[in-house]
């Protein structure tokens, strides 16, 4: 047996039993995709740290937890106030354990020119429309979790923004994990986002957990940003403390298009947000930004791959994080500039503040450049709070704990300021402030 795989295959258990109940089970191309996905998982297993793309993220705990596909509906009558991001009157689409809940969603508030439908509903109603949109998982060991999504995909959001439409109000996808007693539930939401040519819109995701137990969210989102379109895609990962969250976003970016993404990690026991952006057009802009807040024994992984395939486009990445306790952070940022992608601009920055001696950060930039006329840069720093800044604040009467919080908040505010929309800036800043405050109270209690 290869050392690149974890032998435990319990995540695949129950596939044969579950398959007939999954939507689109009578559709040949989908059946084939599911079969291919489960076969890929069974032959490859979960990747070990010998697989380069998973070198810093150990999935043993995920394998051991015995997650199985969710059965039955979770009981949830309302989305608790303040659980999701505060986005005012945004149209809400709510998934509970991966399943779209019409009763909790406000699909009737969809702006004109935007269509949002559940994947399960479309797979039952008109699967043929989806055949070209649902692309198989990447082959090999890197793509095993995506292959698992291929096999088990059940529901998710299919969002289509008509060409030329411009909408300020964000579409808010709220994914709620609800642990089920006696069951370690796994769900594999699949989202398809198509931004038509020249459109301008915003998709925001809130991933939150209710209750104490564990669950596993294994999402896959395919994004297509059409010619001249701008899509802002922001995400809050604030899963339950014992939850596992793995998400892959595959974005295809056309000529003159802008894909502007941001992710804030705050929750989960193990979380990985992975973006593969393919810049297929010229004059396009790809922005992948993020912030991460880790404490306790949290593990947070941000992995990005940007493929510059066409000339004259730019990409930029700013990821900033704060790690306390025994938290561990990972940033892997790969930029590939293909031979034809002359006059590419690519910039990448990863900065981490470690608030304790036991916190750890692994950061790995990777530039692969096959064109000769490009500007690419990367930078990474891992450090502690500045002794001089702390001293300065304290000489003004500010106690040490408050001074530390001020500097941590200031450090993170720079990451959030990468968001270009004021509503989003304040919604995410509020989440960060809440985290800083909770830590402050924690420490004050311990000190008392």
């Amino acid at each position, binding site marked *: 047996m290869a050392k690149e795989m974890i032998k435990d295959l319990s995540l695949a258990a129950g596939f044969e039993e579950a398959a007939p109940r999954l939507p689109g089970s009578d559709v040949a191309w989908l059946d084939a995709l599911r079969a291919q996905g489960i076969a890929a998982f069974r032959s490859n297993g979960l990747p070990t740290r010998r697989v380069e793309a998973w070198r810093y993220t150990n999935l043993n705990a995920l394998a051991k937890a015995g997650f199985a596909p969710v059965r039955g509906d979770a009981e949830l009558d309302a989305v608790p106030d303040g659980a999701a991001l505060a986005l005012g009157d945004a149209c809400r689409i709510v998934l509970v354990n991966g399943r779209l809940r019409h009763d909790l969603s406000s699909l009737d508030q969809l702006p004109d020119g935007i269509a949002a439908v559940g994947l399960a509903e479309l797979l039952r109603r008109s699967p043929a429309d989806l055949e070209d949109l649902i692309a198989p998982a990447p082959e090999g060991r890197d793509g095993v979790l995506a292959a698992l999504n291929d096999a088990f995909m059940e529901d998710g959001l299919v969002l289509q923004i008509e060409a030329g439409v411009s909408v300020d109000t964000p579409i808010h996808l709220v994914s709620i994990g609800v642990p089920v007693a006696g069951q370690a539930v796994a769900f594999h939401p699949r989202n398809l986002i198509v931004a038509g040519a020249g459109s301008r819109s915003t998709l925001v995701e809130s991933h939150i957990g209710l209750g104490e137990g564990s669950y596993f969210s294994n999402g896959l989102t395919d994004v297509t940003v059409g010619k001249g379109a701008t899509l802002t895609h922001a995400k809050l990962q604030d899963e339950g403390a014992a939850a596992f969250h793995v998400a892959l976003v595959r974005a295809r970016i056309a000529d003159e298009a802008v894909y502007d993404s941001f992710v804030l990690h705050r929750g989960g026991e193990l979380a990985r947000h992975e973006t593969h952006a393919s810049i297929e057009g010229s004059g396009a802009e790809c922005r992948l930004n993020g912030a991460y807040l880790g404490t306790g024994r949290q593990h947070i992984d941000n992995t990005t791959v940007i493929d510059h395939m066409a000339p004259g486009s730019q990409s930029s990445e700013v990821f900033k994080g704060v790690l306390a306790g025994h938290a561990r952070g990972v940033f892997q940022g790969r930029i590939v500039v293909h031979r034809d992608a002359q006059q590419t601009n690519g910039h990448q920055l990863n900065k981490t503040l470690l608030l304790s001696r036991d916190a750890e950060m692994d950061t790995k930039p990777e530039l692969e450049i096959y064109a000769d006329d490009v500007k690419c840069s990367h930078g990474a720093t891992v450090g502690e709070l500045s*002794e*001089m*800044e702390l*001293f*300065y*604040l*304290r*000489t*003004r*009467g*500010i*106690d*040490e704990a*408050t*001074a530390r919080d*001020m*500097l941590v*908040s*200031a*450090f993170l*505010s*720079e990451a959030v300021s990468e968001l270009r929309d004021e509503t989003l800036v304040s919604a995410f800043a509020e989440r960060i402030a809440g985290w800083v405050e909770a830590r402050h109270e924690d420490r004050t209690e311990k000190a008392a």
Partner: protein
Amino acid sequence: MALLEIRNLHVTVEDKPILKGIDLSIDKGEVHAIMGPNGAGKSTLSYIIAGRDGYEVTDGQILFDGKDMLELEPDERARAGLFLAFQYPVEIPGVTNTTFLKTALNSLRKGRGEGELDAMQFLKFVREKARPLGIGDEMLKRAVNVGYSGGEKKRNEILQMAVLEPVLAVLDETDSGLDIDALKIVADGVNALRSPDNATLVITHYQRLLDYIVPDRVHVLADGRIVKSGGKDLALELEAKGYAQFSSAEAA
């Protein structure tokens, strides 16, 4: 009892003696100046008074209002009424000047058992203090000291002093890097805060600042010791003759 009483203070940094027995006593209502050549220990003295880490007191004590100051954390010293204007004010990216000043003032007010000022009350208060220093709203909104010119940084130190109303202000080389106009603004700001209830310790290399902030006593610090004390005329004498007399005395 003097407001600040430094007795036989010996300080080492990384086992190297920097201050070698300082005695200094400042009463309320007084302005003292400490002058000295580079490397005399002037900045060490200001940092040890403010409570910076990395300095070891091997002998002596600092009493502030009769209390042992060396036992207090830097923020406790500030709440007790001490203020240090930094020679090199520290840049704090991401924290606006307003937030910084408000947090600091409210910490001090809390320490004194007074209520905190809300955002509106604070803004009114800070604008009044900022106006004479030529600091407008735009500068209040910027991140603390980030991108400020040398003169702006020093004026910002004096603004903090005006807002926090210390009992003892230590000005560490506040004149360095200032042109004459900026120097006057800063000196006016300091003089406006002088009262019978507080005191100021001006640490400087040059006599120039003392034309504007006129001291009651002048001390010469050389090689970690106060080698001479006198009235304000001592500063003029130093300006004329330089520090060489003290250094050579040491060497001999």
